[in-house]
Each structure stands twice: as C-alpha cells, then as structure tokens.
C-alpha cells in the first residue's frame, strides 16, 4: 500500500474540470473518507453530500473511477487503480456543484411511475394479513430494500439515451407495489409504467443490477412489469 493517494475530483458544474489532490492513505479508508479529508483539510469549498455514513440514507453516491458507487461503503482498496482515484458526480443527473447532483428528476420519476402506495382500507378496518411465504411477498422482498441512492439511474445507458425513461429505481418501486395485494392503483400503475418511457424501454443490459449496492435486481423487476403489462394488454384491460 502506497503512502498517499492521487485523487482527481470534479469541481464546478457541467463545464467544470477535474482538480488533483494528494490524500494520505489509511487502512480501511472509504472513498467518502477521502472526500471528507479533502473538504476538511485541503479545500473547504468542495461541495458533496452525505448523511448517515453507514449505507442507509442513499445520499453519498458518486462516480468513482468511472463506476457509480455508494462512497461511504466503498473501501478505497476496492475502487483504486494503483494509487489513483477519480471522483465525479453521478452520471445522468444535472450537476449542481462539484459532487452534488440535482436528484429532483430522479425522484419525480418515482411519482410518475405511481411509486406511492394506495390502499383501500381505513384505520377502522382490520390489518391486512400478508403471508411472508406467498410468491408475491417474496418478489416484493427482493426489491423492497432500495435506499434511493441513484446508482442504478446513473449506471443505466437507456436513461442516457432516452431522458424520459423512468429508470430502474422508479420501475423497481412500481413493481413492489404491483405485487402488493393491499394496493389499489393496479391498472393505473401498469399504464404509468408501460411504453417508451417505461418498462418496455429497458434493454436488459443489467448495469443497474450489477451496480446496485443493496444487491437488488431492478432488471428482474422490470421484466416482471413487462409481463404484467403485457398480460393486461392482451386481456384488453390496459
């Protein structure tokens, strides 16, 4: 292990540039530790975003040596090339400044995909009983742990080619609701996720599945949506 890291960090907005910093290297150092060192010891004007530092909040995702990663849970050892690190903002999102992206478009698409649970019960009704062993509940289980970090969205080529595409996270969220037996938005949600901006635009490149830090497979969720929407269309319900 060399004594120091040569770190290039994106500075500015869309027309910014990479600036070089020398950062001491430590055992078990995370990429977020590196960014924090730069901001605290070398250049206090550096803008970046983080909160929990333990992989729960989804705010610290950045592009590290070309790969979208959650930086708080990425050890330098895993991402470094020799002693070089290049840290930039997430791809496919507008850059506000330095490493901070504007996530509005990402979350607006969750709303467009009808990512909000819509129930039919009131507080006067009995609780719904959903068996943990049911097939639908197991499918929900596989997709439910999304932390909304935007890594999948940043890694997705279809988002880059088709700016209207809802993206892996929003579609994965819609899938967990389609499989939720308590949800009442059914066909409305299937309509929202169909078509050129929805699940049918996915090319199954699987970059989202490869990169998701939580081990979710949005590609599988999107394939499920394609089947569900296809069945509804063939039945004439869509």
């Amino acid at each position: 292990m060399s004594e120091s890291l040569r770190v290039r960090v994106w500075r500015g907005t869309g027309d910014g540039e990479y600036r070089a910093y020398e950062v001491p290297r430590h055992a078990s150092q995370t990429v977020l530790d590196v960014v924090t060192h730069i901001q605290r010891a070398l250049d206090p004007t550096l803008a970046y975003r983080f909160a929990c530092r333990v992989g729960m909040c989804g705010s610290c995702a950045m592009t590290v040596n070309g790969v979208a990663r959650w930086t708080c849970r990425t050890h330098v050892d895993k991402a470094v090339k020799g002693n070089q690190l290049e840290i930039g903002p997430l791809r496919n999102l507008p850059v506000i400044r330095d490493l901070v992206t504007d996530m509005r478009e990402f979350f607006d698409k969750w709303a467009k995909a009808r990512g909000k649970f819509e129930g039919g019960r009131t507080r006067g009704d009995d609780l719904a009983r959903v068996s943990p062993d049911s097939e639908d509940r197991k499918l929900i289980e596989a997709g439910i742990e999304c932390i909304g970090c935007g890594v999948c969205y940043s890694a997705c080529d279809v988002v880059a080619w088709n700016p209207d595409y809802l993206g892996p996270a929003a579609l994965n969220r819609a899938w967990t609701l389609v499989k939720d037996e308590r949800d009442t938005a059914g066909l409305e949600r299937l309509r929202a996720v169909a078509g050129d901006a929805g699940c049918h635009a996915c090319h199954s490149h699987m970059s989202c599945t490869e990169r998701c830090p939580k081990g979710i497979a949005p590609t599988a969720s999107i394939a499920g949506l394609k089947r569900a929407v296809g069945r509804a269309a063939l039945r004439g319900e869509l």
Partner: protein
Amino acid sequence: MKRDANAARQETLLWIAQRASAAVLAVCVLVHLATLIYAVRGGLSAAEILARTHGSTLWLGFYSLFVLAVAVHAPIGLRTVLAEWIGWRGTWRDAFLLGFAMLIAGMGLRAVTAVFA
C-alpha cells in the same frame, strides 16, 4: 389520460409483436440454416434448387411466415434505434417505418413467390 392509456396500449402491443416475431424467427432461422447445410452438402445448382422448391406449398408457407416475421420484427426494432440514437419519434417516424415494413414484406414475398410458385 385517455391518450396516455392508448399510447401505453400501443407501445405494449408493439413490444409483444416484437417478442412474438422474435420467437418465430428463432425457429425459422434454425430451420433455414439446417436445410441450407443439408441441401448443399453435395453441391447444388440453382436449377436443382428451383426444381425442388417449385410447387411446394410447405416451403411456400414456411418462407412466407419467415418474411412476415421479419417485416414485423425489424421495423419495431429500428423504431427504438431511431428514437435512442437520433431522437426521431412521433408520427412521421412511424409512417416511415410502416413503409419500411411494407417494403420488406413486398420484396420478401415477391422473392418467395418467384422461388416457390
């Protein structure tokens, strides 16, 4: 909202048509290649091939299906390529692709009739 629903239905049906035609093509291509390899293993002239294919309703049906599957499959795929690579969407693109589909079907079926009928 109604327009959205129509668009959703149309896109979904196109997607189904492309997957279904792909399934047909997978079989057609295999049969085509296997027949090709089997038929020419000893060397065959064009005249000999034509002598075998003329009047064969089975091969007429098979290659007509092959051509129609291509005419459905290729334009739908090209539709996505045009949208994603050069940003061409909308009615004019779809009209162009309908013409392209008819061109493929017309040329293909003309060739099929020439060989089999």
